[in-house]
């Protein structure tokens, strides 16, 4: 032992007068750090109740509970996370994964109580003193546990596609589809928004597990036209996607297409387990009018229920608007055939070139068939009725598209104006642009709509692609007059449209007459919506059928009219779009089944 070792420790006495380290009042002096992971906060304005927080919580601390005042809306389940502080470990994974950024943490950290039951609360709904604290943990922009960016879809370059009608979208390859499917959070918010309530998370999950056949079966549970819907569906589901709030929604439509593309037509029956169905055995025969999406959907579900179904179609081929309204570059005919051929292979008969009402009276069908499902669609063009619209060079978009598909010659002007901002308007614009390209080697077509670009009803990509194909889109103008010179069209006069809908959301456009525009043109196409043609229903029958507002037929939940054997659905009731038609067909098929079963008893 050295003396130094005894003396040296004593030198510490020099610190005796230093300021103590002790915190005077720890309860008030020490707020948590700026990004401290304290107690939870939830911003109800952002929260959509997707349940990702519940899903990622490794302690099973989060429950989703309904909260008063939070309604169920499209893309919002109305449920809110309820956190059990008897489980939570403050890891903030729930905050990191929250797709909307609603869930955050304050830097408050003190909560004592003598009752263990109170440590369970719904941030945002239950009053807490930290709900509005600004400091605390929130998801850093630099990290992401989920991927907000969609896998880009490859398309043909504009210069490769603007002359022909080959399909533009290439479709995902396996790797891309897997990556896209991987982004799904499996919250299931999309299912409610889809008119057909397809089980989207389930088929995406099956795809992710590389189980294409299972995914395909899930598709057919609610939608017998996956190839078609996988291409041209209006994909309302994608607007409800949880990722849509902060990034790009899952490409649900393209994934559906990918799944359907993977199964070759000859394997359909094997995969779906319907090999035995070719010969229906249940006695009832059912007639379906119109081989469009709704008719086909109803026919499919009736067929797998074992009914003998016959479809009557006025046109020479099946598909309705899908074939005669949508150009081939969006929906190739072989894909339509793939879906429809499968339905036919289940024993569904289609009689073409037969117009009910003209060739066979509707009442006659009832003699032979136990029930009739009429899904005749909207095929009549609607006119703007502005001066000059009665000119022979003014056409309806639907007529042109139908004629073009039928192989007839359609007029192609050198300078064309299309009136309308919906998908049909884009379809005719791009079809005519291609024909102009083929005929004259250049494009000169303008599409104009009342709605400004942000509220144009057409799909965003349609507008973008039209522009890529050198068509001019001029949104926000109201057509006034088609100028006619010497019986020929000279052009279209327009005025600025200020708003389309009034405060109540009703169609009531307002214009600014001072701001004018004039498009030179030698051909005008009107595409401002379609009307239904109910002339096949005889007057006698019409009296029996209860009609609803605006000339629509009144139907019950199961699309049954007041004439009990007649079911009506599709675009003439709801829509217009394919997926609503499919949904209607599905519901009607089940309703017909129920109706016939009830009759039996």
């Amino acid at each position: 032992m050295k003396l130094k070792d005894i003396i040296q420790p004593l030198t510490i006495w020099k610190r005796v007068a230093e300021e103590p380290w002790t915190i005077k009042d720890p309860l008030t002096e020490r707020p948590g750090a700026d990004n401290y992971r304290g107690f939870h906060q939830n911003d109800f304005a952002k929260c959509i109740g997707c349940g990702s927080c519940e899903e990622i919580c490794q302690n099973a601390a989060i429950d989703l509970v309904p909260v008063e005042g939070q309604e169920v809306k499209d893309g919002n389940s109305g449920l809110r996370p309820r956190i059990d502080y008897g489980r939570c470990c403050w890891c903030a994974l729930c905050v990191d994964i929250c797709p909307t950024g609603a869930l955050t943490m304050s830097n408050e950290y003190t909560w004592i109580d003598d009752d263990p039951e109170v440590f369970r609360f719904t941030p945002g709904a239950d009053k807490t003193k930290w709900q509005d604290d600004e400091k605390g943990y929130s998801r850093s922009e630099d990290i992401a546990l989920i991927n907000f960016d969609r896998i880009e879809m490859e398309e043909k370059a504009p210069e490769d596609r603007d002359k022909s009608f080959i399909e533009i979208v290439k479709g995902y390859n396996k790797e891309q589809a897997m990556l896209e499917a991987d982004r799904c959070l499996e919250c299931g918010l999309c299912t409610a928004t889809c008119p057909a309530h397809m089980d989207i998370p389930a088929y995406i999950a099956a795809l992710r597990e590389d189980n294409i056949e299972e995914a395909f079966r899930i598709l057919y549970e609610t939608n017998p036209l996956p190839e078609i819907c996988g291409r041209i569906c209006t994909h309302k589901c994608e607007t409800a996607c949880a990722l849509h709030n902060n990034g790009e929604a899952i490409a649900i439509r393209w994934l559906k297409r990918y799944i359907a593309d993977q199964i070759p037509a000859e394997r359909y029956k094997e995969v779906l387990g319907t090999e035995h169905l070719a010969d229906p055995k249940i006695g009832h025969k059912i007639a379906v009018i119109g081989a469009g999406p709704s008719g086909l959907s109803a026919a499919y579900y009736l067929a797998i229920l074992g009914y003998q179904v016959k479809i009557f179609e006025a046109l020479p081929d099946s598909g309705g608007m899908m074939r005669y309204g949508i150009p081939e570059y969006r929906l190739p005919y072989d894909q339509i055939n793939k879906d429809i051929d499968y339905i036919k292979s289940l024993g569904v008969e289609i009689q073409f070139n037969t117009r009910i009402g003209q060739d066979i009276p509707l009442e006659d069908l009832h003699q032979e068939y136990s029930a009739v499902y009429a899904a005749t669609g909207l095929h009549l063009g609607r006119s703007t009725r502005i001066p000059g619209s009665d000119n022979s060079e003014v056409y309806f978009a639907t007529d042109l598209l139908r004629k073009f598909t039928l192989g007839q010659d359609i007029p192609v002007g050198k300078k064309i104006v299309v009136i309308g901002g919906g998908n049909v308007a884009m379809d005719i614009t791009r079809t005519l642009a291609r024909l102009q390209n083929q005929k004259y080697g250049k494009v000169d077509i303008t599409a104009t709509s009342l709605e400004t670009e942000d509220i144009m009803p057409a799909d965003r990509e349609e507008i973008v692609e039209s522009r890529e194909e050198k068509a001019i889109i001029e949104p926000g103008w109201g057509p006034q007059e088609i100028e006619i010179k010497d019986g020929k069209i000279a052009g279209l006069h327009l005025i600025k449209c200020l708003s389309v809908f009034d405060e109540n959301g009703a169609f009531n456009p307002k214009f600014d007459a001072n701001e004018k525009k004039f498009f030179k043109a030698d051909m005008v196409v009107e595409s401002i919506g379609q009307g239904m043609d109910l002339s096949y229903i005889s007057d006698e029958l019409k009296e029996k059928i209860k009609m609803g507002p605006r000339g629509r037929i009144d139907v019950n939940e199961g699309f049954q009219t007041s004439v009990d054997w007649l079911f009506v659905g599709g675009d003439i009731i709801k829509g217009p779009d394919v997926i609503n038609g499919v949904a209607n067909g599905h519901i009607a098929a089940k309703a017909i089944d129920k109706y016939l079963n009830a009759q039996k008893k």
Partner: protein
Amino acid sequence: MKEKDIKIIEKEMKLANEGLPEMERDLFADDRPSRIEPLNKYLEQFLNWARARSLWILAYGTGCGAIELRPLMTARFDAFRYGIAGRPTPRQANVFIIGGYASLKTIKRIVRSYEQMQGPKYVIALGSCTINGGMYYDSYNTINRIDYYIPVDIYVTGCMPRPESLIAGFNGLKKKIQAGQCDGMNKYADNFDWYKANQKQIIKDWNMPDYNW
């Protein structure tokens, strides 16, 4: 009441100490815990005032929570100034801090240490694990709720609760003591059989006396 009946009742009131081998049974008492009844009102108030000012905690770090006891008891937070001190043995302590999860092996020691503490005694439970299992809710070796085995007076949330939370917990306990509402110990005496049954349900080899005062 006949003398015989009294004897039977007395016998029923005795604990069997079944976990102990025959020769050791005599070494341990077989009395049940008894309630501590408040004394005369003013005296009790004074006692509560005094009790609230000398919280001596048992230095038994039963789980992660022990890690924050060290900062609490050292220079930075210096809990000694609030009358909080650590004691090495249960006999000298009157506050038991359950530091989070309690494993099967620990809960046995917790019960025994708790029973050895002199009344009036208080329990502070830290963290999620004591409330509903916390992150070990699915573990085969940790209990989910401490209040099934010993009575708890104050819960402090957090994982881990910071020393500041702990100080807040102590303040809450003090208030409760001063108001004379800390009756965890009496609860234990009143529901002794229930607690014992819960304890024995998970502690399979009960090789200790039933009550260990």
